[in-house]
């Protein structure tokens, strides 16, 4: 009787396998501990074998290949990318931003406890949304541009319909609150072409696919007894070419590829980083993705083979390591924009793995660290958000051949 109560007290999610009861009764805790140790040793040895096998297959990297193939580098003048707008209005550090699909609108989230929706062309604010919890960490535009989502230390993801009428105080009401994360919501992104689906990552080590229309979780990726991240998940990026696939970056120094149809385990785990993976972003072709980490490097991985194709690392004097806060690829994939905690924002030539420009050193750049960045849908403008409370829009300012 008591045993039955105990059995029912744990969610079946954890103990669903057949024959488990007989295994339970036949195994003592001591023998289980022995099995655990043996299994752990096997896992470690298999991981080592995998590592060696992977190294065998890494016959080159992108930069070596490009050099051997005689590819020339991208050349940037000091004013080829210029700051053409400064979006002023936040009174706290800007933590996150996202472009709307239709190009010229931006939503930004700041420690001042507000989301601001901007018209990037005119610098005008179209919405200033006061949040119930000021500790916002992420924001995202829905694909149709009608809604924005945000999340943060309150562990919930709040959805705002931009066309909702404001309340008596002029505030936009929350249209939906997605609750169930047991840790902070570090990142959120709408599933492309599915305005009612959104993926969040959280400090509770999981990612969740939400059905916004019902407010319920459609799938949970990872968790205590699942094959998933073993530390806080900091970032997600959904594959624009195949919205069933997404990658996540975590404090466990790995990135994982997930298939939304198979929540029980990650499709692949990508090792290599020596620190928290703060940012992940899909490469434009959808077959690769980039990462930015506390170890000061950005990396490019192939999702089909699992190969680490390139490490983007700029050595600093005195061996300082400058964590990467955010990354974004240009529309062709040739440029990788990476923001660092020291205020630098390198433009990497992804092909030759060289820094071609540092936006942080330009004369009208931000005054503090850049915490988030993103490319407009057509790839013609970059937006950066900084702890100096401003956002800046950068665009091509040099010469161009007219074809």
């Amino acid at each position, binding site marked *: 009787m008591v045993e039955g109560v105990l059995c029912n007290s744990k969610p079946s999610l954890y103990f669903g396998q057949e024959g488990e009861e007989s*295994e339970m009764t036949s195994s003592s805790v001591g023998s289980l501990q022995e099995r655990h140790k043996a*299994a752990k040793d096997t896992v470690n040895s298999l991981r080592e074998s995998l590592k060696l096998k992977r190294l065998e*297959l890494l016959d080159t990297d992108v930069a070596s290949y490009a050099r051997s193939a005689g590819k020339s580098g991208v050349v940037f003048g000091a*004013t080829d990318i210029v700051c053409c707008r400064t979006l002023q209005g936040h009174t706290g550090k800007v933590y996150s931003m996202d472009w709307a699909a239709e190009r010229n609108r931006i939503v930004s989230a700041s420690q001042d406890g507000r989301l601001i929706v901007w018209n990037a062309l005119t610098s005008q604010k179209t919405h200033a949304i006061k949040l119930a919890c000021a500790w916002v960490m992420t924001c995202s535009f829905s694909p149709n541009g009608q809604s924005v989502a945000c999340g943060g230390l309150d562990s919930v993801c709040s959805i705002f319909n931009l066309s909702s009428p404001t309340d008596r105080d002029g505030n936009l009401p929350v249209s939906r609150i997605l609750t169930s994360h047991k840790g902070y919501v570090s990142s959120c992104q709408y599933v492309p072409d599915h305005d009612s689906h959104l993926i969040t990552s959280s400090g509770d080590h999981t990612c969740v696919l939400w059905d916004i229309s019902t407010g319920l979780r459609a799938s949970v990726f990872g968790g205590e007894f699942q094959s998933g991240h073993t530390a806080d998940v900091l970032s997600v990026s959904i594959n624009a070419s195949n919205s069933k696939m997404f990658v996540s970056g975590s404090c466990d120094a790995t990135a994982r590829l997930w298939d939304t149809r198979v929540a029980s385990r990650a499709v692949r785990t990508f090792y290599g980083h020596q620190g928290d993976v703060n940012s992940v972003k899909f490469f434009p072709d959808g077959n690769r993705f980039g990462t930015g980490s506390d170890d000061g490097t950005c990396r490019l991985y192939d999702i089909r083979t699992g190969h*680490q*194709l390139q490490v983007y690392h700029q050595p600093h004097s005195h061996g300082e390591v400058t964590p990467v806060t955010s990354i974004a690829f240009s529309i062709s994939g*040739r440029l990788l924009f990476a923001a660092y905690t020291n205020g630098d924002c390198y433009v990497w030539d992804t092909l030759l793995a060289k820094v071609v420009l540092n936006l942080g050193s330009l*004369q009208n750049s931000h005054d503090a660290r850049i915490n988030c960045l993103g490319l407009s849908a057509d790839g013609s403008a970059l937006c950066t958000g900084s702890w100096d409370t401003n956002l800046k829009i950068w665009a091509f*300012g040099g010469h161009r051949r007219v074809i």
Partner: protein
Amino acid sequence: MEAGSGGSSPMQPSLPPPKPKSPPRYPDLYGKRKELAKVQMLEREIGYLQEELKFFDGIPPASQSCKEVADIVMAKPDPLIVMSKKKRRRCRFWKWLCGMSCLNISCLCCCCRCSPSLKIPSCCGDCRCSGSQSCCRCSMPKCNCCFRHCCKCFKTCNCSLNCCIPKCLSCSDFSCKRCSSCCCLRCPKVNFCCSCTKNCCYPCFCFF
């Protein structure tokens, strides 16, 4: 139950007093279950890793993927990348600005004539300024935080002017302020062009 039934028939002999027993000693099932779950998780992990090892037998080396990357990035046009430095100066950036409904076109036209080839003045070469301390008394936003190469230059002059260096591009109202003479930056370099009658500030940061 027992007490209730006893109460309903008071004539019956009273039941012996309860002798509570300690519950039987059950094994620590929770700890055991947790241990078992851990083992099962690891065994599942072993299965995945063995699958992954098998998967490696069929995958191509990294060079193939590198080639794909090279082909992809070279094939697709990118609005942020320089294609040629010789031809016309029309660019998407200006298109961007021209899309603005409230834009002062005459000012822009003036700017478009300016070739923005920035050079660091010789007096500023060795200056490195990070942080946000004020480096001169200019009232311009960036003067207060030393754009990195020029703060020494600013320090050496008593610049109290409304120096226009970054104003034109970053300000939201696109107001072009007239700059007075500046001691060391050769500012302003006012560029009058055919359709622009204003003292446009943008050329100020083009050190011809």
